[in-house]
């Protein structure tokens, strides 16, 4: 894509840059998401949390223990489609709940094996009211200290949610050990994929990873009015058909900014690390649709990443 093809640039309320190309479709380039908590506060949280000397993820006996491809793990986000796949999820032995989905799973009589939290905002507590003594709560070192207090009678395990803003030297000064961290993307779901891989899983089943809305619902459960407001602008996204060029009117998804960013980040992640795991999606959505396209395009003619970047998603 030549830069001359760009006919306009739009900045969303969240600060994302949308480039409008002359083919009349808006295509996101380098989608960025704004952190609700500043890097400074995040790092302050780390400095408060590390002296608590809580167990670290790299010390778990299951860390980096290869599970084999016949041992699946279910990674669960809160997307609307989750409602329709609860019974399938109950068939999994090992489940990683990502972010706000925890209490919804508990309300469905599901006890996840792990629950990952990386949102530094104490608002996360609202989704962790129904805790379970057998769940391993994987808390990013950057979470607010009130969250650690909230989980004090439960299994707390810390992990570094890597950010380029971190001063690793300073963290190492605090820890006195090598810096282990989990990277992965802009949402807890994307970090969750890396957590699964670091725990030795390659056969990863995705539930509620829609990365899009269902009518007006962005989750399988209610979120607060404030959080809904923070989602900002709604985008309409068109994926192309598997066997034709250009966007399809049949494959239209509505999504908010962070969902779009997540879909893009997943695409990049899969292109870089897809050889490390096999995803299986339970429930339709933007992310599963995009993954199908990636696999189709790579499988058909081994297209370059550049072409994938250009043609996968059309946003209006």
């Amino acid at each position: 894509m030549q830069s001359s093809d760009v006919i306009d640039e739009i900045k969303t309320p969240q600060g994302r840059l949308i480039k409008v190309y002359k083919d009349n479709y808006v295509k996101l380039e380098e989608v960025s998401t704004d952190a609700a908590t500043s890097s400074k506060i995040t790092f302050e949280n780390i400095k408060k949390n590390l002296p608590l000397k809580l167990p670290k993820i790299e010390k778990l006996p299951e860390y980096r223990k290869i599970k084999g491809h016949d041992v699946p793990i279910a990674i669960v986000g809160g997307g609307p489609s989750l409602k329709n796949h609860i019974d399938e999820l109950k068939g999994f032995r090992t489940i990683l709940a990502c972010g706000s989905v925890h209490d919804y799973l508990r309300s469905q009589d599901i006890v996840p094996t792990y629950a990952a939290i990386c949102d530094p905002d104490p608002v996360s507590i609202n989704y962790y009211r129904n805790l379970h003594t057998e769940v391993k709560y994987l808390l990013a070192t950057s979470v607010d200290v009130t969250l650690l207090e909230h989980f004090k009678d439960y299994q707390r395990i810390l992990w570094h949610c890597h950010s380029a803003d971190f001063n690793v030297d300073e963290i190492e000064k605090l820890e006195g050990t090598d810096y282990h961290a989990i990277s992965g993307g802009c949402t807890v779901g994307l970090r969750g994929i890396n957590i699964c891989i670091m725990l030795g899983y390659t056969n990863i089943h995705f539930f509620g990873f829609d990365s899009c809305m269902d009518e007006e619902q962005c989750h399988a459960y209610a979120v607060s009015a404030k959080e809904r407001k923070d989602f900002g602008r709604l985008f309409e996204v068109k994926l192309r058909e598997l066997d034709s060029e250009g966007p399809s009117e049949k494959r239209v998804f509505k999504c908010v900014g962070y969902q779009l960013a997540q879909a893009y980040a997943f695409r990049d992640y899969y292109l870089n690390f897809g050889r490390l795991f096999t995803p299986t999606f339970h429930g339709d959505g933007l992310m599963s649709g995009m993954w199908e396209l990636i696999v189709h395009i790579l499988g058909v003619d081994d297209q370059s990443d550049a072409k994938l970047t250009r043609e996968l998603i059309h946003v209006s």
Partner: protein
Amino acid sequence: MLAEPQQGNFVFEDVQTPKGELILVKGIQTNAATSTNDMLENIIENMKYKFPIFEGLTEYNKPKGWDRKIALVGGGPSLKNTIHELKEYRTIMSCGSVHDYLINNNVIPTYAVNCDPSPISANYFTKADPEVKYLIASHADRKLIAALGGKQIILWHCHSEDLQEQIFKIEREENNRDYNAVGGGCTVGLRAISLAMCMGYGNIHFYGFDSCMGDDGEQHHAYDWANPEEENPLIDKVYKIHLGPTTGPENNKHYYVAGYQLAQLENFKDFYASNKDYFIPTFHGGGALADYLELIKRIKPKEQIQ
């Protein structure tokens, strides 16, 4: 008791109830198949690998609440009839040789415990699963450690008065740690109760904890020996015991038990007496231990031992 009890240093009490005389089990001796020196060598070797330790688990010392149950699974013959119930449990701890039998029956335990220092135990861990946490006593034979290669091995010290000083010294000098060990009794099943309690479980359900042979007095486990030639001699004598008063309806109830099972019965009684405020046992499948517990609970402490 029909058979002559063995003489030795393991002496049981006579028990009486208001109804009359109860069990008479005297002089049962349990012998360790592995010498203390060999066990110490194993400990020194195994600790070199720097496996995670039991008290380092995040679930250690975290009370789970009475509504969170754990199934402890031994290999008693009754397990064949109750194994299907295990699918209802979220947390399962297999005890000793039952591991492969469970896996063969599509029951994947959460934890698998072993404290047998004999290399024979490796024969029962041939189907190791990558998601199981193997709680292996530090004195385990290297063959078992090798059989579990690449899996989640977690070491714990099986408390023994013979070895505590040496282990204390090794922990202090090599690892700068305190001596933490798990007590409990003469079998892996009894130690497993302690392990479960250390992890905060109080609602403990027992499966295959018969502590007796099958009804015919022949069947020792729900499964066969892995190596009959080597293991058959381990049960050299089978006793017939009665639980309950010598007069009355319970007199007709009898069990065939091997020496280690008899020892386990008595060890359990002591363990229950000391820890009954901290756990509620529920037995599934019947057997001598289940009935013995009912008897223990029925008899007032002052009346138990004359």
